[in-house]
């Protein structure tokens, strides 16, 4: 390659526009328009067929419930959000160190890891009633359900990531006689980060589901409780409003996770 082609490559890279991951208003017009049309059809159908509000409320009824119940909704949202984030944080705090231990200890890898993979198949939400039986109806059993549903994806993703280092990189590091700590800090952990974020993004969507299931089993607050209570009393618009909040919460948490990922592992995003 001559000097000339080197500078040519330079300008090629300078000129290349790296596509941004974010959304633009232009891209949002089509889905938002579709959504608006669907809401109008929904509104029209409920009034045309005279569907009773307790069975299927019109979007306008749901909007009304939003305004009338905003204080209640806010309170229950905070409870569910707290359960979700506390359980998620707890699972990160335990799952990542456990994955490190499993990868570094041949004994644990042989004894504990197969067990973990097996336990992954247990439907965690089915444990929720047992947790209620053991520790009651407070916030703690909900946090534990969230913890359980988040834990396994994070352990598996982290363990996979830590063992994903290319053999040639390990050769390079061995040829420099790097010690275990250097290998972990400089190679294995950074290499595992993109995998860990895959696990975290799966876990955060599970987390909201886990909190709601925990609340279904027995609770005095939270959006899951609100859905259960309001639909049993035929306050269906409130149940729908709570559902809308849950959906927004899931989306916001997922995109928050993705934003953190973009900051933490910029080299791996968009691969």
């Amino acid at each position, binding site marked *: *390659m*001559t000097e000339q082609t080197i500078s040519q*490559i*330079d300008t090629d*890279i300078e000129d290349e526009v790296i596509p941004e991951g974010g959304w633009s208003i232009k891209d949002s017009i089509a889905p938002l328009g579709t959504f608006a049309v669907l809401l109008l059809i929904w509104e029209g159908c409920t009034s045309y067929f005279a569907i009773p509000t307790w069975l299927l409320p019109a979007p306008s009824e749901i909007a009304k419930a939003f305004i009338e119940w905003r204080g209640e909704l806010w309170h229950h949202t905070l409870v569910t959000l707290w359960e979700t984030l506390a359980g998620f944080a707890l699972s990160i705090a335990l799952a990542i160190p456990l994955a490190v231990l499993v990868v570094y200890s041949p004994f644990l890898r042989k004894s504990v890891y197969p067990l973990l993979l097996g336990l992954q198949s247990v439907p965690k939400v089915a444990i929720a009633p047992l947790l209620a039986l053991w520790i009651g109806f407070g916030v703690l059993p909900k946090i534990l359900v969230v913890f359980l549903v988040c834990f396994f994806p994070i352990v598996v993703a982290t363990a996979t990531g830590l063992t994903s280092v290319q053999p040639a990189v390990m*050769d*390079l590091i*061995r040829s420099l006689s790097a010690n275990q700590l250097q290998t972990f800090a400089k190679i294995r952990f*950074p290499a595992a980060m993109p995998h860990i974020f895959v696990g975290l993004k799966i876990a955060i969507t599970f987390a909201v589901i886990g909190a709601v299931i925990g609340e279904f089993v027995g609770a005095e607050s939270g959006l899951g409780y609100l859905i259960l209570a309001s639909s049993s009393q035929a306050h269906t618009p409130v149940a729908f409003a709570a559902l809308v909040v849950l959906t927004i919460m899931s989306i916001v948490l997922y995109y928050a996770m993705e934003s953190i990922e973009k900051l933490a592992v910029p*080299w791996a995003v968009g691969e």
Partner: protein
Amino acid sequence: MDVSDKLPHETKLSKRPADKVVIEKLHKTYLTSSGRTVALQDVSLTIGKDEFIALVGPSGCGKSTLLRAISALIKPSKGKILIDGAPLSSPSNQVGIVFQQAVLLPWRTVLDNVLLPAEILRLDLVKAAARARDLLNMVGLSEFEARYPGELSGGMQQRAAICRALIHNPSMLLMDEPFAALDALTREELGLQLLRIWAAEKKTIVFVTHNISEAILLADRVVAMSPRPGRISEIVSVDLPRPRTLDMEFLPEFKSYSDRVRAVIGHG
């Protein structure tokens, strides 16, 4: 055929300053599910200090295995390797390695990738950074030190990998088909660049390739290996003047070296 007795380089032994690497009767066998595979059989080779050696041969001839044995990444089944007169037991920080793939760490900038060995060997990072910049300048990557590997072409990545192998100023450079994944033009340019570096900082280089012309263009001696079992068939001393240039490939001597190597490794 035992050619080691009448090889031309043996007569020059006295001229060489010192032996950098002495390989004696090296064997390497692998146990696989299909039985024993002999990767290296009775390989003996002496590499002089600051000599440029090319190991050439078809796949399966054990050239990469031999290189990995010299780097102590694998242990030989039989035989021994002496580096600077001392038996080789563990990887030495006097060695820099370049692989076929650049294997740069995607989360580090080019400069930080080059500095990785200095960090691991706990060298003075201020001095190391100055050397890294010199090396990057030498291979024309100065403007790219803050870029990430993903933004670089394959040839540029491999240049950075060569800088990384040189950062701790090792006395020996081991290169395992370093240019095999590159296009022909980039390959030639990088080969000449490597020779310029080698002229500037004398080092012993062991260069594995399956490209006969590349081996002859770069090396002082071409070690031709043949497969099943992997062994040295002949060692060809290349007496082309230095600095080498690409048009030497059209010299009749070049062709006769090339024909000799081609004949012994059994590739038409």
